[in-house]
C-alpha cells in the first residue's frame, strides 16, 4: 500500500536504499536483539509499562502506610518507617527514569521520529539496540536493590549526600544504595546512546522537503529532549561515579568530617552541596526531558483533533528551544534553602521565572489552537486537553516555588510534591496515554476500545486532581514531604484528614488504570482493524501501511511538500492536507 495513492491523490515518494538494512529473519534477531527502531520502540514501551506498574504498586503501599501505619499486608508484611522511605526512593527513581524518560522518548520517539521525518530507521540501529538493552539492565539492577540485605536505599530519588554516601547512615544505605547508583549510571549510558542517535537522525535523515521548520512539533520535542539528555546525563554519570567512589574507595567528594551516631565516618573535606549542584544540573533538564515530548505530542493532537493548524508553530519551536536552553541555568532553584549563597538565589530565581515564560507561551498557543477549531473528542484528544489543564495547574505553582521568599516556607512541603506530580508526573503520563491511544492503531494495526478509553480518561482526570490538588493545601499548612507518618508533629497530625482523602482517591485512580492495561492487551488481539489513517492526520506515519513495513515506507522515501499542520485549508478537497500532498498555495497568516 505504501507509495501508492490515497484519497485519490498521488503521494510522491522516491526509492532509496541508504541506511536500510535487510529485514531480519529468526525470532531472536527480529524480536529480541532487533535493530528495527519500531521493535525497539515497542520494547521501550513495554519496559516502561512494567516500570510504571511497579512504581504504581509502590505508591499504593506508601499510601496505605500513610493512612494505616500499622496495617499488616499480605506477603509484604509490615511497613516500617525505613520501608516507607525505600518505597519512596524506588518509586521516584523508577518513575522518573524508567517511565517518564523511557516511554515518551525511548518508546514513542524511537518508533515515530524516523517515520515522521521520512527515514527508514534510526541513524545507528546497533546503538539503538544497545541503548535499549542497557536501559533494561539498569532496570534489573535497580529492582535488585529490593532483594539485597538491608533492602532498597532510603535517600530519595535525589540521593542527597552524605545520606547516600554513608552506609552507616541508615538501613538500605549499604548494597542497596550501591545498586541504586550503579543502576543510574547504567541508565545514563543507555540514555546517552539514545540521545546521540535521536539527534543524528533528526539532523541527517530527514526526507526531501522535510526542512526543520516543516517537522512536526513532536519531532522538535524529541530532538530538543535528546539534546538535553546528551548534555545532562553525562554530568549525572560523573556525579554517580564520584558518589560510588566515596562509598567504595573512601574518597570524600561529598562527605565532610563528621560522625554518624558518634562514630567518625573516616571522611573529611568534602562538600554535600557539590552533590546537589551536580545532581540538579542534571535534574532540572531531566524534568524537561520528561515533559517536552508530551508537550510536542499534545501540540500535535490539539491541532489534529481541532482540525486546525497549530497556533504559532514558530513560537512553539522557539519556546521549546528557549526551555531547553534556559533549562541548564536554573538548577539552583532546588537549592534556595541548601546553604548556597543567597546572592546566587537571586540569579537562579530570575532565570527560573524566565523559563516560566516559554511554558506560558505554549499554554496560550494551545488555547489558541482550540479557539475557533472544530473539536473531535476522541480519546487521544481528551487526554491532550487533560494535559493542558494539568500543565496549567502544575505550572502555576512553579512561580511560587521559584521565589526564594516563598520557597523558605514551601520547600520540602507537599506543595512541591503537588507541583511536580501534576506538571511532570501526571501531565507527562497524560502525554503517554494520549500517545498510546493515538498511535496504537499504527503500532498494532487495531483500534483501542474507545468506550473504555473514555472511561479511563474521566476516572484518571478527576482522580489525578483529587489526589494532587489537596496536596497544595497540605503543603500550605506546612505538611512536610518524606514523612513516613504525620503523627509525631502536631501541626502535621492535624492534617491527617487530607492524607486520608488523598489515599482513597489514589486507590480509586490506581484501580482505574487497569482499564487501560486491559484495554491495551485486549485491543491488541481483538480490537477493530485500523485503517491506515484513522484520525485523518497529515504527518508521514499516516501515509504508510499499518503497521509500517520493516523500512517504514516500503523501499521508497517520501517527498514532503507541506508543513505538518495543514488542516481545514480553504479550497482543499478534504479538511486535511498530507505533508506529501501537492504544496498548499500561498499561506496567509
Amino acid at each position: 500500500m505504501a507509495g501508492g495513492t490515497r484519497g485519490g491523490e498521488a503521494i510522491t515518494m522516491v526509492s532509496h536504499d541508504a541506511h536500510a538494512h535487510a529485514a531480519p529473519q529468526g525470532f531472536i534477531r527480529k524480536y529480541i536483539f532487533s535493530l528495527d527502531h519500531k521493535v525497539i520502540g515497542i520494547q521501550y514501551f513495554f519496559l516502561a509499562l512494567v516500570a510504571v506498574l511497579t512504581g504504581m504498586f509502590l505508591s499504593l503501599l506508601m499510601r496505605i502506610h500513610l493512612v494505616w501505619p500499622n496495617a499488616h499486608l499480605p506477603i509484604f508484611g509490615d511497613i516500617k518507617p525505613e520501608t516507607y522511605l525505600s518505597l519512596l526512593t524506588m518509586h521516584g527513581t523508577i518513575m522518573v527514569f524508567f517511565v517518564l524518560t523511557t516511554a515518551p522518548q525511548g518508546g514513542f520517539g524511537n518508533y515515530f521520529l524516523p517515520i515522521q521525518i521520512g527515514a527508514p530507521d534510526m541513524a545507528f540501529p546497533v546503538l539503538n539496540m544497545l541503548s535499549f538493552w542497557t536501559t533494561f539492565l539498569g532496570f534489573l539492577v535497580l529492582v535488585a536493590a529490593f532483594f539485597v540485605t538491608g533492602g532498597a536505599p532510603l535517600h530519595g530519588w535525589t540521593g542527597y549526600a552524605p545520606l547516600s554516601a554513608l552506609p552507616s547512615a541508615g538501613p538500605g544505605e549499604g548494597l542497596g544504595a550501591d545498586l541504586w547508583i550503579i543502576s543510574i549510571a547504567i541508565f545514563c549510558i543507555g540514555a546517552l546512546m539514545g540521545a546521540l542517535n535521536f539527534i543524528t537522525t533528526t539532523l541527517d535523515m530527514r526526507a526531501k522537503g522535510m526542512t526543520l521548520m516543516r517537522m512536526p512539533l513532536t519531532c522538535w520535542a524529541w530532538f530538543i529532549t535528546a539534546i538535553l539528555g546528551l548534555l545532562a546525563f553525562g554530568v549525572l554519570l560523573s556525579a554517580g561515579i564520584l558518589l560510588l567512589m566515596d562509598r567504595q574507595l573512601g574518597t570524600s567528594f561529598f562527605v565532610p568530617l563528621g560522625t554518624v551516631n558518634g562514630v567518625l565516618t573516616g571522611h573529611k573535606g568534602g562538600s554535600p552541596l557539590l552533590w546537589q549542584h551536580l545532581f540538579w544540573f542534571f535534574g532540572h533538564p531531566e524534568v524537561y526531558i520528561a515533559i517536552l515530548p508530551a508537550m510536542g505530542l499534545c501540540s500535535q493532537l490539539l491541532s489534529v483533533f481541532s482540525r486546525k493548524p497549530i497556533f504559532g508553530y514558530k513560537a512553539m519551536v522557539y519556546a521549546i528551544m528557549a526551555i531547553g536552553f534556559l533549562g541548564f541555568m536554573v538548577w539552583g532553584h532546588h537549592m534556595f534553602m541548601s546553604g548556597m549563597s543567597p546572592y546566587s538565589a537571586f540569579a537562579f530565581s530570575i532565570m527560573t521565572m524566565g523559563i516560566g515564560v516559554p511554558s506560558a507561551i505554549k499554554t496560550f498557543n494551545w488555547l489558541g489552537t482550540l479557539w475557533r477549531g472544530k473539536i473531535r473528542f476522541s480519546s487521544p484528544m481528551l487526554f491532550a486537553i487533560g494535559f493542558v489543564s494539568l500543565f496549567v495547574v502544575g505550572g502555576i505553582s512553579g512561580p511560587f516555588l521559584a521565589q526564594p521568599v516563598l520557597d523558605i516556607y514551601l520547600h520540602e512541603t507537599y506543595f512541591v510534591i503537588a507541583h511536580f506530580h501534576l506538571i511532570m508526573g501526571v501531565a507527562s503520563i497524560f502525554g503517554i496515554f494520549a500517545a498510546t491511544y493515538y498511535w496504537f492503531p499504527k503500532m498494532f494495526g487495531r483500534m483501542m476500545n474507545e468506550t473504555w478509553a473514555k472511561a479511563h480518561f474521566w476516572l484518571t482526570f478527576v482522580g489525578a486532581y483529587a489526589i494532587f490538588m489537596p496536596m497544595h493545601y497540605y503543603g500550605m499548612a506546612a505538611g512536610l514531604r518524606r514523612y513516613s507518618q504525620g503523627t509525631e508533629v502536631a501541626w502535621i497530625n492535624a492534617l491527617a484528614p487530607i492524607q486520608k482523602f488523598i489515599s482513597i482517591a489514589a486507590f480509586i485512580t490506581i484501580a482505574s488504570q487497569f482499564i487501560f492495561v486491559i484495554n491495551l492487551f485486549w485491543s491488541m488481539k481483538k480490537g477493530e482493524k485500523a485503517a491506515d489513517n484513522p484520525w485523518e492526520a497529515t504527518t508521514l506515519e499516516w501515509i504508510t501501511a499499518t503497521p509500517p513495513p520493516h523500512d517504514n515506507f516500503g523501499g521508497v522515501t517520501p517527498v514532503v511538500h507541506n508543513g505538518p499542520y495543514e488542516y481545514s485549508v480553504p479550497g482543499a478537497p478534504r479538511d486535511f492536507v498530507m505533508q506529501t500532498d501537492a504544496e498548499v498555495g500561498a499561506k496567509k497568516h
Partner: protein
Amino acid sequence: MADSVVPHDIPSVYEPSLFGTYSKKIGMWLFLMSDSLTFGALLYAYSYGRISTPNWPTPFHSESIVNATIMTAFLLTSSLTMVLAVRASVQKDAKAQTLWLLATIACGAGFVILHGMEWSKLIAEGMTLPFFPPVPGHEVSAEFASVAKTVPQFPSTFFTLTGMHMLHVTLGIVYLGVVALRKKFIPILLALWLIAWLGTPSYSPFHYGAHVLLAAAIVCAIILWLKPKVYDASDVEVAGLYWHFVDLVWMFIFPLVYLMSARIL
C-alpha cells in the same frame, strides 16, 4: 509533482545533512560533547575541592613531572600517528593505515603503562585512597602519606581525573584495535586481559581494572556479530576524532593535576 523522480542513488532522497557530513561523524561529535560534560563535571568537582581546601598540597617531585611529561610526549606522538593513519585511509593505503593505527595503539599503550606504573608507585608510597588495599613490603613516603591523610581531596581528585582519562585511553586503544584488525583483535584483547589480570598483584587496582578489557571484548564481539563490516576511511576519521579528544582532555589534566601540584622549591 516536480521532484517526484529522484535518482535511485542516495543522498539526494534526504534533506542536505548538517555541514554536509555523514552521520557517524555527527554522532562522534555529539558523543564528544557529552563526554566533555562528563569530564567537565569531574573538573568542576576538582575545582570545588581545590578552592574549598586552604592548603592544597604540591607534593609532586621532578620524578613524577618528568614521567608525566614523557607520557604527554607519547600522547602527542600518538596524535601525529593518528593523523597519518587518517591520511593513509584517505589514500586507500590499507597497509599504511593498519600500521599507523598500530603505532597509535602502541603510543597509547605506552602512555597507559607509564601511567599505571606511576599510580602503583604513588600508591605504594602512601598517596592512596583509604579503601585501596595496603601494598605489602614497600617504604611509605612520609610526605605522601601525610598528604593523603590531611587532604584526602588530593588523592581523590588525582585518581578520579587520571583514572577516568586512563579508562578513555584504554577504550580508545580497543576502538582503534577493532578498526585496525576487526575480529582478529578480539583474541588479542582477551590475551591482554589475561596478562593484565594475572600479571598484577591482587592489591593493585589494575588487578580489577583489567576486567574493563574483558567487558570491552564482550561488547566488541556483540557489535562485530551484529554488524560485521570492513571499516573504511570514514571510520578511521571518526576514530581519530575520539583519539584527539582524549589527547585534548589530557592537556587539561596534565597542567591541573600535575603541573599545578608540582613541588616548588
